């Protein structure tokens, strides 16, 4: 009809100067592969508005969603990791991680109120060296446990970790024992410890404090395990069941008390604190 119709297509992108798009303007949901606009993600607590997939959440954002506005008072903020084993390249890695994530170490600890109830809240951050636990993470959490004992406060720990920090060797592993010991004392005092397992919670953290909660909650779809699935498969030489190491699987098999969506987490913690509150 028109001489216009039937134009040849196929032009290369090199013909055009692409516009600079800000990083993370759009994020791809791992679960449903949809593109999510950053504002939609932020306004929805970093949960995919299309499929409900829980995106990883940074520590301060996590705390903001948990405690009453303006009540968080961080402690041990300035604790910095020392390269105790003089592991090569570790110092550089720490600096890079700090720059990238905006925090000094993989856990933030402090006091906060949940619906008016004062607690000690710890939030691990997987964006700092995969949330790996080294001496400072162990020390900060131990001190948080000790503070909650001192002031007889309930303790809430959000776990997210790739395991023990390799660069600190046996010192990292020791943290498992240290934190667990503090938690034992905490328990003997009759105090409440709720831990929330978020994606991913693995290795030494799972094998210590993550599984010691009086009540263990988990976010939907979170990967929770100790060894990686491939290693397990090769060791037992069997196919792994469907949903292996997911929060829901663990709930079904008694390792997690309740899978709670991010939207309901604050409400759920409040209910638990009320029931166990005493005063």
């Amino acid at each position, binding site marked *: *009809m*028109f001489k*216009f*119709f039937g*134009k040849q297509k196929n*032009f290369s*992108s090199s013909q*055009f*100067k*692409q*516009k*600079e*798009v*800000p990083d993370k*303007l*759009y994020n791809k949901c791992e679960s449903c592969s949809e*593109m999510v*606009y950053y*504002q939609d993600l932020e306004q929805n607590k970093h949960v995919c508005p299309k499929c409900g997939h829980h995106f990883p959440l940074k520590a301060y954002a996590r705390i903001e969603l948990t405690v009453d506005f303006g009540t968080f008072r961080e402690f041990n903020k300035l604790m910095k990791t020392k390269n105790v084993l003089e592991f090569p390249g570790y110092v550089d890695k720490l600096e890079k991680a700090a720059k990238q994530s905006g925090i000094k170490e993989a856990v933030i600890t402090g006091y906060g109120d949940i619906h008016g109830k004062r607690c000690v809240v710890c939030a691990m951050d997987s964006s700092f060296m995969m949330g790996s636990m080294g001496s400072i993470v162990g020390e900060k959490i131990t001190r948080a446990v000790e503070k909650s004992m001192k002031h007889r406060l309930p303790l809430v720990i959000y776990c997210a970790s790739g395991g023990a920090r390799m660069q600190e060797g046996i010192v990292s592993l020791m943290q498992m024992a240290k934190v667990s010991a503090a938690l034992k004392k905490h328990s003997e005092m009759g105090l409440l410890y709720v831990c929330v397992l978020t994606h991913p919670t693995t290795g030494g953290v799972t094998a210590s404090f993550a599984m010691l909660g009086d009540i263990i909650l988990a976010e939907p779809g979170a990967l929770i395990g100790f060894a990686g699935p491939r290693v397990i498969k090769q060791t037992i030489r069997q196919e792994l069941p469907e949903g292996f190491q997911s929060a829901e699987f663990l709930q079904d098999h008694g390792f997690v008390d309740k899978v709670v969506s991010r939207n309901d987490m604050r409400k759920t913690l409040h209910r638990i604190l009320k029931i166990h509150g005493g005063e």
Partner: protein
Amino acid sequence: MTHFNRVLIANRGEIAVRIIRACKEMNIETVAVYSTADKDSLHAALADYAICIGTGSPKDSYLNLERIMSTAVTLGVDAIHPGYGFLSENSRFAKMCEECGIIFIGPDSDAILNMGNKSIARELMKSSGVPVIPGSDGLIHDMDQALVVAKEIGFPVIIKASMGGGGKGMRIVNTFEDLSRFIDQAKNEAQNAFGDSSIYIEKYITESRHVEFQILADKHGNTIHLFDRECSIQRNNQKMIEEAPSSYISDVMRKNMGDSAVLAAKAIEYNSAGTVEFLVDNDNNYYFIEMNTRIQVEHPTTEMVTGIDLIKEQIKIARGDKLTINQEDVIIRGHSIECRINAEDPDNHFAPSAGTITDLHLPGGNGIRVDTHLYPGYKIPVYYDSMLCKIICWGNDRAEAIQKMKVALDELVVSGIKTNTSLQKRILSHPDFLAGEFNTNFVNKIIG
């Protein structure tokens, strides 16, 4: 002052054609986006580049921010013109353009946001000294407040949705007894249609005329109006015939309303083209209704009587140019009328009519302008609004313009589908229309 090399037109149909033409006249490369249902559309054919962005459903294509932004970013466009409807008043889209370094040809996302919330717009206008219809101070929070407001302003009142449009979330209330029930209904409808149940109340003016003012403002604080348009010829709240200028308002009213329109635009630091809508009652009081922060369908009527190309002005303003027209320079010459020709079946309650254009003959001649995306053999897609073309006539006075329109409509041939042309002709021959004595109920009355 940036120079635009390439502009993306985030729209379709006649307005996309209009914008593409304006860009070509300014030596700007054009990028069209189209849905699979629009692959044989004129706007895609005319543009320098055309990219398919989704299936026919508007949600998947013309309202799909991701795909449109991706197209714009990948083709390195300097600016996006959103046309009217679709994303033109989507503040998030405007913001996204800003974030990607693309200029949105329209106002800032904040201005869009504020005017998009009817209740906020009302309050802003009130505080700026622009007359608004008597009503609630902001949103209605509870029944007690509603009753107080209703008592104060007197029945009938109209409940309106704050995020509303298209007549949804509106209820006219005549008695106290109905108030509570209708508020609940309006809130539910608003929640379903707009995801927001906020409502406010205004006095309902039973007989009124819709008169709007065209605004043009640059990014340097210069704001002018290009006078008025009469848009009372509406069927079910859809405009059918528009005129510039209004034959009803006096010159004194014109001056006052024009000043109010400029005040309204300045209050929100507006830039680009926009329209301030007023309602005029039988006592010649005028009230602000809402502001449309985009170019409108009926913009050609203003172009014909002022000689100013609004699309080109929008582009110039967007790239940072100062307005070269002063208020004193704007003069209305003659009278123009626009008839919207829609694919509607007059014998079937004006239900949308589908089909392929088999024969097409468009009128022409001195003072006749046709804006359309039609061509012979064009198959009308079913997903979009039914407007086929706009016929705009200019005459030295209103009588001549009407006469030209009658001649043009007689000459118009659009075969293959049903159109509303016969109704348009009826209106144009009606003595009340010729005498200029009509209000927004006119069309609904004559079709019974």
